[in-house]
């Protein structure tokens, strides 16, 4: 009977990821958050260390590990920062897997290998100013012009968007058919160095300020024929596939973050004294933290079942939607209780808990909102 999905090799990997995170990320988080930026160097270093391609096959430039290796990586980064976990996960779980899954050898060489080495930075382009969860309604359009495509439109809330070298993007390649809006969508790898691409602005956010979130414009941008990823018109199906891995990824680092803020609250409750004893000895405080620990354990167990299915190649839409929904709610609830436990200390700018409290709110919106997950579940349950 397995009690843990991880092997000794995973434990060693965890140790080396943790060392890197503790040395090169954690000490700078407050400073990066205040500056609203972090150095690209993070991607380069992660690539050098082999962390960006853990579960990618060696034949495509990855480390050839299993999905649990990726889980280790996301957990260790998620433990210290949802913002950095998000930007790295955009690279490893969102922008690059579709290239491996749908791309040609040439596209893998051109885009995937450098991304796994950390030499180029990727983003995923779905959301537009008027279209978020409702993916079928996207309006950015690529039209054929000879061998090339001409791309026009805009993308909104794009993480890594201001620094990305390439964007794995879905756009419309056929007229919108109201009866069948999923048709006529295609996926491209968009080279951001080409003329016509511009970062309209970096968006100022309430949380995850260090990560760049951008509004992007494509104005008569000419893409070469081989920018098309996969099959023309299959973009909707392809992006739905991408969203599975994306949602599992954010669930993994989300639950790790929830566990970390809970641990911080427990540490604080043991150290901080009031009325003559550590506050953790007050039954009300201890029960609240016990409740949170229970919620974390349950949701983590659900996420692990999800990872297990994913690692065995099962396309488990229901479990993925459940995990995504559960983690978003969990992390917001736990971080709020953690902040309450810390009291005034939880409100101080630059502290771990206050930063995560602001950042975790994104978990219930990005990658498909709570409402979208519920709608997916209702459909699968045959009631929506």
């Amino acid at each position, binding site marked *: 009977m*397995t009690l843990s999905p991880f092997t000794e090799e995973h434990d060693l990997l965890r140790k080396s990821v943790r060392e890197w995170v503790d040395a090169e990320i954690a000490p700078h988080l407050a400073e990066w958050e205040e500056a609203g930026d972090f150095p690209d160097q993070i991607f380069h270093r992660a690539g050098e260390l082999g962390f960006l391609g853990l579960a990618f096959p060696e034949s495509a430039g990855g480390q050839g590990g*299993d999905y649990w290796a990726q889980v280790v990586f996301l957990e260790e980064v998620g433990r210290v920062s949802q913002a950095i976990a998000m930007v790295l996960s955009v690279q490893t779980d969102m922008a690059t897997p579709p290239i491996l899954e749908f791309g040609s050898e040439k596209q893998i060489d051109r885009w995937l290998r450098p991304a796994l080495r950390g030499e180029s930075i990727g983003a995923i382009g779905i959301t537009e100013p008027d279209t978020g969860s409702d993916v079928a309604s996207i309006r950015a359009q690529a039209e054929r012009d000879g061998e090339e495509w001409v791309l026009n439109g805009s993308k909104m809330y794009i993480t890594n968007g201001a620094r990305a070298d390439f964007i794995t993007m879905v756009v419309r390649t056929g007229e919108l058919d109201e009866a069948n809006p999923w048709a006529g969508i295609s996926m491209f790898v968009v080279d951001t160095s080409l003329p016509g691409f511009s970062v309209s602005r970096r968006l100022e956010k309430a949380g995850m300020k260090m990560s760049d979130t951008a509004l992007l414009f494509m104005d008569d941008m000419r893409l070469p024929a081989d920018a098309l990823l996969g099959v023309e018109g299959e973009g909707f199906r392809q992006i739905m596939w991408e969203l599975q891995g994306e949602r599992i990824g954010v669930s993994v680092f989300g639950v790790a973050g929830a566990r970390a803020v809970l641990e911080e609250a427990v540490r604080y409750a043991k150290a901080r004294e009031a009325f003559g004893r550590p506050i953790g000895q007050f039954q009300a405080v*201890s029960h609240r933290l*016990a409740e949170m620990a229970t919620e974390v354990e349950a949701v983590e167990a659900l996420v692990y079942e999800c990872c297990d299915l994913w690692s065995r190649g099962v396309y488990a839409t229901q479990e993925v939607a459940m995990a995504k929904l559960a983690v978003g709610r969990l992390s917001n609830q736990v971080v709020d209780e953690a902040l309450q436990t810390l009291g005034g200390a939880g409100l101080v700018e630059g502290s771990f808990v206050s930063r995560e409290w602001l950042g975790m709110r994104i978990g219930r919106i990005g990658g498909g909102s709570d409402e979208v997950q519920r709608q997916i579940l209702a459909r699968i349950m045959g009631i929506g």
Partner: protein
Amino acid sequence: MSGLDLLFLEEHDAYREAARRFVSNEITPHAEEWERARDYPKELFEKVGSAGFFGAKFAEAWGGTGPDYIAETVWIEELSRGLTFGTASDLGAHSQLAALYLDRYGDDEQKQRYLEPSIEGRLTGALAVTESGAGSDVNAIRTWARPDGEEWVLNGSKVFITNGSWADYVVVAARTSDEPGHDNLTLLIVDADRPGFERNRMNLIAWQTSHTAELYFNDVRVPDENRLGEVGTGFRHITTIFQWERLTMSLSALSLAELSLETAIDYARKRRAFGHPVIRFQVWQHRFADLAVRIRAGKALTYRALRLHIAAESGREVPREELVRLTSMAKLYTQRIAFDVADECVQVHGGAGALKEYPAQRLWRDARVGAIGGGTDDIMRNIIAGTMGLGVA
């Protein structure tokens, strides 16, 4: 190998099929009638026994077919879907408690006399720990057993003893010492026909078919050969078996929750309001989706605890604190889910939710017991906080 290996193998699927068939033939069709009568025929124990469903976790030497705790899990899950939770609770008190105590702590002679016929369903047992002044606080037990020659003389009373009003024998936790600490309780097997033993079936608002009883011991003489385990080991044994009991309660609660959700969705499809079936309203769709997520997370947590139990049963070294932590979490998390789902099930029924002719109100009443029995929610929180180094030292 990385990843999680499967809990349920093909043989367990077959076992589930058989259990489901048994429950849907022998239990579900009678549920309404039994619930109205607040009773059911005691022969059910023999039926369950002869079909082999008391045997999964016991060794072949005593008439079992195991030990296979995954098969036992399957039986618990299916039994709890039988729409008569009180009946399932009686069967559980007999098999998951009384018989399990005999299996763990009994000597060969005791196993022959009590365990074998219990697995066959010819003899039924109950476990008596709780008293009016000692529920979650097991150490406060006031029922005394005093030695007298080769016998023990038992005085005191017990309350909320599931299956107690008709059990053939009762495993009783009694005080045998006044010393402080945890070595002052001893377990005795008390035959129901002993002089001085009286009992009274209780009327509860939930688990209404269950034979939950108050037990009275008035100078009941129990031979020392009926002592289960060493003198003074009672507390330790009780807190050990608590873990399995709480896990079985988690499994049952999840079945009840699933049943409540199915019942609710089924009604929401049929019931029309404002020109639509209620299920067409998005708030109900989303509410049901949320409940399904909680049930699924509860199941993942419970199975996480189950893996530890199974590893421990198969003789592997398992940190006890981890087992206690996960089991307590599963118990806490699942009992509340069961009640919340049942409560929404009543809600979607509207006025019909209050009617006895619908099972919704019964699921709701029965689910409420879970946060109290087997260690209350607050006790679970105390235990969990303790494993985190929090709470009153």
